[in-house]
C-alpha cells in the first residue's frame, strides 16, 4: 500500500515537474503598472522628504542666525542713556570705538534679519507651503 502511495506521489510529481502553462499577457501588464505606481510613490516620498529636510534646515539656520545676532547686539540700558544725555551737556561723552569685528556683526541689524526672514518665507511659499505670519 505504501509502495502504491509513493508511486502515485511520484507520478504526480513527474506529471507536474514540467507543467508550465503560459500565463495571459495582461498579467505582466498589470504587474508592470503596479511596479510603476510603486516607484512613482517612492520617488514622491523621496522628493517630499528632501524638501522637508531643506525647509527644516533653512528655518533652523535662520533661528540660529537670529539668536547669534541678538546675543551680539550692544544693549544699553535706557536709564543709562538718559543719564548720559544729561551729562552730555556738561561733559564730553566718551567715544567708544567698536572693534572691527563688532562693526561687522552690527551690520546684521534687526531690519536685515526681518528682510532675510521675509525672503525665507517667500521661498517657502513658492514651494506651495502656506505660512501664517
Amino acid at each position: 500500500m505504501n509502495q502504491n502511495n509513493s508511486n502515485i506521489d511520484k507520478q504526480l510529481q513527474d506529471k507536474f515537474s514540467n507543467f508550465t502553462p503560459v500565463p495571459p499577457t495582461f498579467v505582466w501588464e498589470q504587474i508592470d503598472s503596479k511596479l510603476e505606481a510603486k516607484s512613482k510613490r517612492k520617488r514622491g516620498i523621496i522628493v517630499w522628504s528632501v524638501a522637508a529636510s531643506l525647509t527644516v534646515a533653512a528655518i533652523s539656520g535662520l533661528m540660529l542666525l537670529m539668536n547669534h545676532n541678538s546675543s551680539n547686539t550692544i544693549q544699553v540700558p535706557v536709564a543709562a542713556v538718559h543719564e548720559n544725555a544729561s551729562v552730555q551737556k556738561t561733559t564730553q561723552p566718551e567715544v567708544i570705538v567698536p572693534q572691527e569685528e563688532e562693526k561687522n556683526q552690527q551690520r546684521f541689524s534687526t531690519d536685515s534679519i526681518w528682510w532675510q526672514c521675509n525672503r525665507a518665507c517667500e521661498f517657502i511659499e513658492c514651494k506651495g507651503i502656506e505660512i501664517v505670519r
Partner: protein
Amino acid sequence: MLTNEEIISGCVKNDRRAQKELYEKFGAKMFGHCLRYSSSNADAQDLLQEGFIKIFDSIHSLRDASTFEGWMTRIFINLALSKYRKTKSGPTMVDIENIDTPDQDVEDEGNIKQLSADQVLDLMKQLPEKYALVLNMYAIDKLSHKEIAQYLNTSESNSKSMLSRARVMLRDLMNNKK
C-alpha cells in the same frame, strides 16, 4: 539572456528589464504552481500577480541565488495558503474514524501517465479544497506533514488522514474517468 545572478541583482536595483526577464523566465512555471493551488483560473492569475509583486519587493532578502527557484515557489505556496486561511477560518479537522484505508490492489497506477497534466489538474480540482492542498504540498512539493500541519493549522495525524483520503478519492476519480 541574463543569468539568474544578473537577474537577481537587476531586480534588487528595481531594473524593469531584469524584472521582466525574471517574469519571462519563471512566469510559466510559477503559473503552474498557482493553478495547482487555486480553485479557478482567475484566482491563479491573481495569485501569480501578487506573488511576483511580493518577489520583487523582497528579493533583496535572498541570500543564496542557488535556492532562487525554491524560494519563489515557497512565496507562491505561502500566498496561496494565506488566502486559503483567510477564506476558511478555524482548524481543519477530519474524522479519522471515517477514513477509508482501502486494501484494493491499485492497478490503475498507469492512469496518471496516460493523462495530461491538465487532465490530472482537473481531477484534483474535483477533490475537496483541503485534500487537494495536502496532496499538492505532500506529493508534489515535498513538504512534510509537520509543515503541512502548521500551514493548515491542524495536527500531523489530520494531515496524514487528509492525504490518505485525497489519494483514494483521486484514484476513484481516475477509475471513473477510465
